[in-house]
C-alpha cells in the first residue's frame, strides 16, 4: 500500500485538496489557508470588523466530486451498432441502438474520415459543433481551449449560444443602460462593502443566491448574508416559490404569478411617482425619457393608471402589499438583487422577459442608482477589497481559443473561415427544416447592433451548406433547452448523417451519438486557472473572498481508456493535417508554463514553487485605498474610475468617461437603440411595460386545458446536468431527488390547494404534461409555492423515457424542459422562455 498523497485541484464549485491512495481518489476537501498564505481582507462597517474564514468553500454539488470522477463514466470509444458509414446509417435508431466497443484508432479514423467526407461533399459549413458550460474546470482545457482551437482551425458553422441564464438582461437591460460588453449585467465593484456599511434592505427579485447563485465560486457569499442578517439588514424576496433564500433568511416573501413581475414593477413606480418618493435630481440629470414614461405609468397615454390595484389583479399580490413594498423600498437604502452575477433568475427567462429587466433598471434609476447603499447587486460578486491589478487570465479572455492568449497564433476571432452560423435554440429546425432565419447573434458582447443582425441557415450563397454533422462536446441540452423532444426528433432525422459525442460521462444526449469518445476529467491531467474567474464578459467581477490561482495538479491517470480533450483533438488534428497549428509543438506543461509566465505570478513565486504548492493566494489591496463602488462615479457625475472596467484590450466603453454607453449617456426610459433598430416592435417597445405572456394565466383557452404554471429555475444540487446522475449521494438529499420503489425521482412542488383536488399526496408519482410532452416526477406538497403555480428545477441529468428513443414517451428522469415552449421570448428576442409554461398534473397510474 502506498502512502496517501494530496494534490491541489479546482472544481467548477471551488478549489480542493484531493487525497489519492494507490492511484484512487479517496477524499476531496476545501483549501485551508495558513500563515504563509496572504492575509484576508477586513471590512470595517457599523462598528464591526468583517473578515472571511481562512478557508475556501465548496458548492454542495462539488462536495461529492470524487464520486463524480468514477461514476457513470464513458469508458471506451464506442460505435453505434447499426451505424454503417459506408452503407445504411439507420439514423432512426439513435437513442435506442446498442453500442460496440472500438479502438481509439478506429474511432479517430472514423471521425476524421466523416469530417473529410462531409467537407468534400457539402462544404465545411455542413459541420456544426457545440459545448455545454463547465463540465470540467481549467483555463486551457475548458471548452474555450481544445474545442475552440480545433474547430476554429478546421472551419465549422459555429453554433451561437443564447444567453440562456439571463436572457432578459442581455436582450432588454442593454437598451436601458448599455453594458452589452457585460452581456447586459452591470459592474459589481466593491458592493459587499457598500452593503455592509450603508444598506437597510435588499430586494431579492426572482433570485435565490442561497441555492443557485454561486456559479463557479463555491458558497463564498453565504457568510456575507449571515453577516447582513446579524446587522439587521432586511431581506424581501419576490418569487412565486418561497425559494431557499426566502425560506431560510427572508423577512418577507412576496409571490406574484409567474410572468407578471413587470406589472408589479410598474405599480411600484406608480406609488413613487404619486408620493414623490424618488430621486428627482438623479432622474433629471442622469436619465432620458422619464417624463414620457411617467405619463404611461400614470395612465395618461392609455387610460390605465398602473396602480397597485391594477397590478394586484394581474400579479395576484394584494394591492396593500405592493404599496407597502414601494414605500419600504423608497424609505430605506435598498439594494436590488436580481441574479448571479445576474443570471439564473426565473423572470428573465420567460415571455417578454426584456420588459421586467428594463423596468428593474428604471426603478433603480428612480432611487438614485449608485447612492451609498443603493445599487444593483446580485449579492454574489464585488467581494473586496480585492487587488484587481494582479494579472491572471480568465478562461474566456481570448474567446474561442484560450491557447491563442499565449500562443504564437490566435484562431479567434479571425480563425474560422466559415461564416455560416447555427443557433442553439433553433438547431432542431435548422437540421430538420432548413432554411431557418433568426435575428440576433447570441452573445452580443461587441456591440448593440449584434442584437439586430439577421441570420439564415443555410447561409445564402455558395458558402452555405445544410447541417449534416453535429459534434457535441460535454453536457446535455435535453434538460436545459426548450421543448426538447425536438432534440430527440432532430437526432433521429435522416438529414443528420453523423453525430459525435465527446464527454466524460453518459449524459442524456450521449446515446444519440454514432461515435462516442471518452474524455477524462480535469483530475486526470494538469491545468491552471483562477478560482471563479471567467474573465471576458465577467472581467474582474470578483466573487471569491480570496483570489486563488491554482496549478491543477494531475491526481490520477486517465480512467479506463479516456483521454484529455486536448489529446483527442490533437489526434484528430493530426489526421486532418493541422496538428502543428493546433499544438505549436507544445504539450500541456508547455502551455501551462506560458500562462504562468504571462501572468503576474512570477512576481511572487517561481514555477517550481507554484507547481509544488499548487495554489497562490493573491494579497488583498491595501486597506487604506478608498473603495471604488459601482455606479458611484455615475451618481456623482464623475468619469468611470472602476478597476473592474479598466480592461485591456479591448477596453471598456465607459472607463475614464462620464456617462453610460447609451446614445444619451444616461439611463434611458425611452430606448434610443430600440427606436433606431426596431421602432415598430410592440413586443419590445422603446419604453418597457408589462405585456401579458403568450403562455400564462391570461391565455385563457390554454390555461383552461393546462391550468398550472410551471416554473423551472436552475437547480441547487447540480451545475447544469453535470452532477446529477453521477454524484449519487446527491440523491439522498430530499430536495434533489425523492427515492421511491428503487428509483430516484425528480421532485415537483405543488400547493395543497392544487394537490388535494387532484388526489395527490407528497411522495406520489405524478404525470406533468402538456401538448409538448410528459414528465414523471415525485410530488412534494408544500406551502412554499403559490397556488396555481408548480415548481420543479430544470437540469435533471437523466432522460429516461419509458420507451427508449421515442419522442414524447413519458420521461421518468425529470427533464421538465421537455415541457417548456420552443417559442422564444418575443418576435425579435431569440431567448429561451422556459418559465412561460402551462401544464396539467395527474397522479401517475402506471
Amino acid at each position: 500500500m502506498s502512502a496517501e498523497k494530496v494534490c491541489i485541484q479546482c472544481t467548477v464549485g471551488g478549489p480542493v485538496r484531493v487525497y489519492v491512495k494507490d492511484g484512487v481518489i479517496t477524499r476531496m476537501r476545501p483549501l485551508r489557508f495558513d500563515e504563509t498564505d496572504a492575509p484576508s481582507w477586513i471590512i470595517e462597517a457599523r462598528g464591526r470588523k468583517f473578515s472571511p474564514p481562512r478557508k475556501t468553500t465548496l458548492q454542495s454539488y462539488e462536495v461529492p466530486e470524487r464520486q463524480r470522477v468514477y461514476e457513470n463514466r464513458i469508458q471506451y470509444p464506442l460505435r453505434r451498432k447499426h451505424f454503417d458509414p459506408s452503407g445504411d446509417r439507420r439514423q432512426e435508431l439513435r437513442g435506442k441502438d446498442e453500442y460496440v466497443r472500438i479502438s481509439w484508432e478506429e474511432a479517430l479514423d472514423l471521425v476524421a474520415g466523416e469530417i473529410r467526407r462531409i467537407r468534400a461533399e457539402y462544404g465545411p459549413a455542413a459541420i456544426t459543433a457545440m459545448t455545454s458550460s463547465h463540465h470540467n474546470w481549467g483555463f486551457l482545457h475548458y471548452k474555450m481551449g481544445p474545442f475552440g482551437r480545433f474547430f476554429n482551425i478546421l472551419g465549422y458553422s459555429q453554433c451561437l449560444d443564447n444567453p440562456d441564464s439571463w436572457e432578459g438582461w442581455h436582450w432588454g437591460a442593454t437598451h436601458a443602460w448599455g453594458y452589452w460588453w457585460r452581456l447586459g449585467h452591470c459592474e459589481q465593484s466593491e458592493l459587499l462593502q457598500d452593503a455592509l456599511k450603508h444598506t437597510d434592505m435588499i430586494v431579492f427579485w426572482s433570485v435565490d443566491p442561497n441555492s443557485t447563485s454561486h456559479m463557479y465560486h463555491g458558497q463564498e457569499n453565504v457568510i456575507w448574508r449571515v453577516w447582513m442578517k446579524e446587522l439587521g439588514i432586511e431581506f424581501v424576496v419576490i418569487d412565486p416559490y418561497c425559494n431557499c433564500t426566502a425560506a431560510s433568511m427572508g423577512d418577507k416573501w412576496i409571490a406574484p404569478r409567474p410572468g407578471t413581475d413587470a406589472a408589479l414593477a410598474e405599480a411600484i413606480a406608480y406609488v413613487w411617482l404619486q408620493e414623490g418618493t424618488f430621486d428627482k435630481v438623479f432622474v433629471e440629470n442622469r436619465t432620458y425619457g422619464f417624463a414620457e414614461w411617467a405619463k404611461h405609468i400614470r395612465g395618461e397615454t392609455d387610460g390605465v393608471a398602473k396602480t397597485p390595484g391594477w397590478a394586484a389583479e394581474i400579479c395576484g399580490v394584494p394591492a396593500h402589499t405592493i404599496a407597502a413594498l414601494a414605500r419600504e423600498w423608497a424609505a430605506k437604502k435598498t439594494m436590488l438583487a436580481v441574479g448571479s452575477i445576474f443570471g439564473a433568475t426565473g423572470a428573465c427567462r420567460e415571455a417578454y422577459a426584456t420588459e421586467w429587466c428594463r423596468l428593474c433598471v428604471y426603478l433603480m434609476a428612480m432611487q438614485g442608482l449608485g447612492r451609498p447603499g443603493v445599487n444593483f447587486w446580485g449579492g454574489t460578486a464585488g467581494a473586496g477589497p480585492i487587488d484587481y491589478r494582479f494579472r491572471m487570465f480568465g478562461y474566456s479572455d481570448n474567446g474561442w481559443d484560450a491557447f491563442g492568449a499565449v500562443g504564437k497564433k490566435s484562431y479567434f476571432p479571425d480563425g474560422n473561415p466559415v461564416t455560416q452560423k447555427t443557433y442553439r435554440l433553433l438547431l432542431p429546425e435548422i437540421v430538420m427544416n432548413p432554411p431557418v432565419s433568426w435575428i440576433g447573434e447570441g452573445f452580443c458582447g461587441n456591440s448593440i447592433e449584434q442584437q439586430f443582425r439577421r441570420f439564415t441557415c443555410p447561409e445564402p450563397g455558395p458558402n452555405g451548406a445544410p447541417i449534416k454533422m453535429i459534434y457535441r462536446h460535454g453536457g446535455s441540452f435535453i434538460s436545459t433547452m426548450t421543448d426538447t423532444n425536438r432534440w430527440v426528433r432532430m437526432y433521429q432525422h435522416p438529414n443528420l448523417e453523423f453525430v459525435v459525442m465527446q464527454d466524460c460521462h453518459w449524459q442524456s444526449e450521449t446515446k444519440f451519438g454514432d461515435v462516442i469518445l471518452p474524455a477524462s476529467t480535469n483530475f486526470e491531467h494538469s491545468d491552471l486557472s483562477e478560482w471563479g474567474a471567467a474573465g471576458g464578459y465577467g472581467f474582474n467581477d470578483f466573487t471569491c473572498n480570496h483570489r486563488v490561482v491554482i496549478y491543477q495538479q494531475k491526481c490520477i491517470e486517465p480512467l479506463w481508456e479516456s483521454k484529455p480533450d486536448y489529446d483527442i483533438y490533437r489526434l484528430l488534428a493530426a489526421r486532418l493535417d493541422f496538428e502543428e497549428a493546433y499544438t505549436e509543438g507544445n504539450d500541456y506543461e508547455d502551455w501551462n508554463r506560458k500562462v504562468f509566465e504571462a501572468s503576474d505570478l512570477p512576481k511572487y513565486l517561481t514555477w517550481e514553487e507554484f507547481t509544488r504548492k499548487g495554489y497562490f493566494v493573491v494579497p488583498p489591496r491595501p486597506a487604506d485605498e478608498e473603495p471604488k463602488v459601482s455606479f458611484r462615479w455615475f451618481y456623482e457625475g464623475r468619469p468611470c474610475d472602476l478597476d473592474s472596467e479598466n480592461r485591456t484590450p479591448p477596453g471598456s466603453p465607459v472607463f475614464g468617461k462620464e456617462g453610460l454607453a447609451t446614445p444619451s449617456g444616461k439611463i434611458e426610459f425611452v430606448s434610443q437603440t430600440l427606436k433606431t433598430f426596431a421602432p415598430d416592435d410592440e413586443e419590445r417597445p422603446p419604453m418597457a411595460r408589462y405585456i401579458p405572456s403568450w403562455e400564462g394565466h391570461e391565455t385563457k383557452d390554454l390555461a383552461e386545458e393546462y391550468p398550472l404554471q410551471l416554473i423551472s429555475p436552475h437547480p441547487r444540487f447540480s451545475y447544469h446536468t453535470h452532477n446529477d446522475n453521477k454524484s449519487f449521494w446527491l440523491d439522498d438529499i430530499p430536495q434533489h431527488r425523492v427515492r421511491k420503489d428503487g428509483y430516484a425521482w425528480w421532485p415537483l412542488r405543488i400547493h395543497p390547494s392544487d394537490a388535494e383536488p387532484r388526489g395527490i399526496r407528497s411522495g406520489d408519482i405524478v404525470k406533468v404534461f402538456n401538448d409538448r410532452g410528459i414528465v414523471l416526477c415525485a410530488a412534494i406538497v408544500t406551502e412554499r409555492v403559490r397556488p396555481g403555480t408548480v415548481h420543479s428545477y430544470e437540469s435533471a441529468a437523466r432522460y429516461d423515457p419509458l420507451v427508449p428513443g421515442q419522442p414524447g414517451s413519458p420521461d421518468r428522469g425529470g427533464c421538465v424542459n421537455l415541457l417548456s415552449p420552443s417559442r422564444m421570448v418575443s418576435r425579435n428576442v431569440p431567448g429561451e422562455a422556459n418559465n412561460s409554461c402551462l401544464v396539467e398534473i395527474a397522479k401517475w397510474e402506471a
Partner: protein
Amino acid sequence: MTRYGMVIDVSKCIGCYNCFLACRDEFAGNEYPGYSAAQPLRGMNWIKVIEVERGRFPKVKVNHVPVTCMHCEDAACLRLDQSGAVYRRSDGIVMIDPEKAKGNKALLNLCPYRVIEWNEERELPQKCTFCAHLLDQGEPEPRCVESCPASALTFGDLDDPESKVSMLLATGQVVPMHPEYDLKDKVTYLNLPKKFVAGTVIYGDVGEVAAGIDVLLSGDGKELSAKTNGFGDFEFEGLAENVQYTVKIEASGYQPVTLTAKTSRDVYLGEIVLTK
C-alpha cells in the same frame, strides 16, 4: 484537558447539506484503523439534516436542523451497553470500537437520538466520531464544520473559556435538542425551531397595511408585545408548543381585535382587517 463540543446555530443553517456530504466523503469506503471502519458507499448518515417547513402561504419559513451524535457526558449508549464496545476518549469523544461492536445491532436502540446506524455490509453499529482521526493529526475541526459555508457549526474545546464554542455556551442561549433526556449533550443548539404566531394587519377603510401598530400576545403565563412592520406584519417567534395564546391588536380610531391561536403548529392568522 481538552474536551470537545459543538454548537449548531439553526438560524444560520441554509440547508446546503455540505456537512452531510463532507461526512460521506470522509467515511464512505475509507478505513481509519483504530477509529472507524469504512462506511458503505451509500446509505449511512452520521450527520443528517432535518428540514422543518413552518407556516402557510404566504407566511412560510424553513429551518434546517443538522443532527449527529451528541457525544453526551452521560451517554446512554455507553451507560447501557454491556459489551464494552462503546468507550469515551480522554477528550470526551464517544467512540464505538469496530472490532468489539461487530454484530451488536442492539446498540442502535440504546440512543434516544437514534444516531447510531447499522452498517449492513460490515454488520457494525456506527456513528459520528467527531473525525477523531483528523483531530489527532492536529486538525482543528471535523469535516462537517470545515465544510459549512455559513459558520453555523462551531467546534472547539469546552474547557477553554476563550474558545468560540465556550463563548457561545456562555451566552446562556444554548440548549440540548432534548433537555428531557438529561444526557449532558456536548452537541447543543442555538435557535432550535419552536412555534410562531404571526399575522398581517390591514386598515379596512383605506385598504392599506397598518404599520407600527401594537400587538399583544398572552398565554403560557406571559405577555409579549410587538409592533407591526412596514408590511403590516407581526411575528412572535420562539413560542412554546400546544399553548392557547390570545392576540390583541389595538390601533387608535379602530375597533380593537382579539384573536386566539393555538400553537399545535405555527400559526399565520392571515390578514386581520381593522374597522372603525
